[in-house]
């Protein structure tokens, strides 16, 4: 995919700050997606997680893997990239293990490998790496692409 179409796909994602966790989609094909995000020092959740000791919450890491691994890949596979109104998604399950902390300002890379995409359901094996190349977390995520109203 060209750089323009990768950036168009990123812009099709149905999120906005403070809940957009994708800076760039780096690579995508029918079976694989790779993207990155840098957690800004002033993200809202650092105010309370944890008191006096900001650490990126596991749910946010999971959400980041879902936005890249599930939603970006799902939009690509359903040929909806560039659509002004991509179909709504439902996050249906997650089984994730965490290995390392991610601190404010860190950049992470997410890779997703398609397990299957059938009848609107997408299941992906995802892994997140930090900038040192260490595995931060990994797991299997599933979602349903809902029919447009």
């Amino acid at each position, binding site marked *: 995919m060209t750089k323009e179409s990768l950036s168009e796909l990123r812009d099709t994602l149905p999120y906005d700050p403070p809940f957009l966790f994708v800076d760039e989609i780096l690579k995508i094909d029918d079976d694989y997606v790779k993207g990155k995000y840098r957690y800004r020092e002033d993200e809202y959740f650092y105010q309370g997680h944890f008191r006096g000791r900001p650490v990126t919450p596991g749910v946010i890491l999971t959400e980041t893997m879902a936005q890249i691994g599930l939603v970006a890949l799902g939009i690509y596979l359903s040929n909806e990239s560039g659509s002004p109104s991509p179909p709504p998604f439902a996050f*249906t399950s997650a089984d994730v293990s965490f290995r390392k902390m991610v601190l404010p300002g860190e950049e992470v890379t997410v890779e997703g490998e398609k397990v299957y995409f059938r*009848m609107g359901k997408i299941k992906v094996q995802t892994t997140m790496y930090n900038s040192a190349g260490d595995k931060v977390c990994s797991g299997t995520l599933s979602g349903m692409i809902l029919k447009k109203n």
Partner: protein
Amino acid sequence: MQEQEIIEKLTEVIKTYVEDKSVLEGITPETHLVNDLNINSAHLVDIILDTEEAFDIEIDDESAEQMLTVKAAVDIVSSKLSS
């Protein structure tokens, strides 16, 4: 394969995706996967994939969409097994 054998094998497949296992005790051909067993649409797709694997058959999407009751599932599996 006998119908009873198909039902037993299907029940095994479905079981994985049922949270409250007690509802499986009263399973009949009329049992509805969504209304009676509370299976969500994402898991319906898993059941179809697992059924294909368990019986070594392929279920087209159109048939798959009909697989909402135990009876419908048994009928679809039987017809694929005999085709």
